């Protein structure tokens, strides 16, 4: 079993936000009565005149963000993923994406690991919703270190971004000097038998699964896709050619998330078998983060089982 230190993505977000506030006078941060949860409170402490709390009013927050961006501000607008991608979708579509504005949406509490709050606060459809919007780029950092790099990269890039973070502490699987380039996936472990392509919290699960698979004589490649859109088409094609077999893993509905993006690339560029691990077509329920991950098969064990089964079929065919 691999041992990683755990760290919190939201905490990392709060820290990098304070750094960026100092570097960039045009940066403005917005929140909707969740400044502590989203850690935008850190920015408020340092730059109160460039921080606005909208109260429980996400629609006004995102449309005002558009107005600020139209006035040459770079805007960080942060709330829970379920409210950003759901409650204020029309505002994000019409006022931010359509105008291709410099608004960076940092959506915390993505996925089912929100846990006990239940289905109303869990967000398992945001990646599909956001990737569908023209101009919108979608980023899912896998740990705290990558979160800082991602937020920084998005602030320095033009146009609207949706950055999805989780609530829970997550294993720190990347290192400070690992390369981070928007739109480019990272190969974390090489292998030729099967490719495990993951995003967010599932990256660490895939690394554990790969170690388990190695003990069973299966050499798995592990890819971290931190940018869901634009997807790293060249890398996915290369991986498909090298392994002929792919498992995708994400804390998101299996419809229209990472699995769907990988599937369309593979279908068009190099048809190979793709198995998608993610939330089936259901709403979540209350439970602890770990219990819910287990229930929906977001576990290293499930990845191993699927990989073993697929490898058997591959060898027999």
């Amino acid at each position, binding site marked *: 079993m691999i041992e990683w230190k755990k760290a919190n993505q939201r905490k990392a977000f709060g820290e990098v936000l304070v750094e960026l506030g100092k570097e960039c006078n045009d940066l403005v941060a917005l929140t909707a009565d969740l400044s502590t949860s989203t850690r935008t409170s850190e920015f408020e402490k340092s730059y109160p005149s460039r921080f606005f709390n909208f109260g429980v009013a996400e*629609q006004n927050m995102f449309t005002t963000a558009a107005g600020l961006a139209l006035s040459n*501000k770079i805007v960080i607008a942060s709330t829970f993923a379920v409210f950003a991608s759901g409650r204020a979708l029309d505002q994000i579509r019409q006022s931010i994406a359509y105008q291709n504005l410099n608004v960076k949406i940092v959506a915390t509490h993505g996925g089912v690991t929100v846990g006990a709050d239940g289905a109303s606060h869990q967000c398992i459809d945001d990646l599909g919703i956001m990737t569908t919007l023209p101009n919108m780029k979608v980023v899912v950092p896998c740990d705290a270190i990558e979160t800082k790099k991602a937020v920084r990269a998005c602030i320095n890039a033009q146009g609207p971004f949706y950055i999805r973070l989780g609530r829970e502490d997550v294993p720190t699987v990347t290192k400070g000097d690992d390369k981070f380039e928007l739109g480019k996936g990272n190969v974390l472990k090489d292998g030729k038998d099967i490719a495990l392509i993951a995003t967010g919290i599932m990256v660490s699960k895939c690394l554990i699964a790969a170690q388990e698979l190695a003990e069973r004589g299966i050499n798995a490649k592990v890819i971290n896709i931190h940018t869901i859109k634009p997807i790293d088409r060249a890398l996915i094609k290369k991986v498909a050619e090298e392994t002929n077999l792919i498992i995708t893993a994400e804390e998101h509905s299996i419809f229209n998330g990472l699995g769907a993006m990988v599937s369309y690339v593979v279908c068009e560029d190099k048809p190979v078998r793709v198995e998608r691990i993610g939330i089936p077509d259901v709403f979540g329920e209350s439970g602890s983060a770990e219990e819910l991950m287990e229930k929906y098969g977001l576990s290293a064990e499930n990845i191993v089982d699927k990989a073993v089964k697929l490898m058997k079929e591959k060898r027999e065919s």
Partner: protein
Amino acid sequence: MVEESVIKKLAAQAKIIRRWIVEMTYRAGSGHPGGSLSCADIVTALYFHILRHDPKDHKWSERDRFVLSKGHSCPALYAALAESGYFAIDELFTLRKLGSRLQGHPSVLKLPYLEASTGSLGQGLSMAIGMALAAKIDKKDYKVYALIGDGESNEGNIWEAALFAAHHKLDNLIVFLDRNRIQLDDFTEKILSLEPLADKWKAFGWEVKEIDGHNFEEIINAVDWAKQVKSKPVMIIAHTIKGKGVSFMENTAEFHGKAPNKEQYEQAMKELEK
């Protein structure tokens, strides 16, 4: 007192804007003449008297901003921009046509002389608020004007914005409400009543004035008054007539989102020649 010559000039200009609204929607075969005609005098007063702007330098940082939140009334805005000299008059004939910069609802990426893309109702007011906040952060003295509709005021986003602007004391924000009393389906008070509308905005913490939205002296005086208001956003409820200036379009929901046919077009243009 507003000088008589100013009022005469604006009245003549508004008639030209109205003729363009009818001409553009007729040629497009679609569009929203009713609400465009009701706000034509306000838009005319803004572009030809009130706004600090420079058609030769549309990105001038000190310019006043204007956001047409009720984006479906864009024929009035496009006509005012062309008549002000932002782009060639002939381009008005392209409204709603493939490849045109004059989209069915305003798109700032297509037409850079606009301040914002609008059309999905309830969002323009918040964008104006964002601009007013930016002015405060940057310590700029430009004003931000917005025009919202009464039907549009059904949207929750409007009332979220109302709370926020008052909370942040945005006294650089001046909003007109085009109170023509008709929305797409029928009279506003029949669909979802708004009254007492002035009391609502007052209760939300805004400074409110009610005017005749077809009277240039009242429009100009209201803005002069609004500029003196401190620590509050201003709402100018402009009582207007839907379809104003074209007899058969006046006070009916029929022409909210319907273009005139040839016969109607000819009659409307005849009426607007007077």
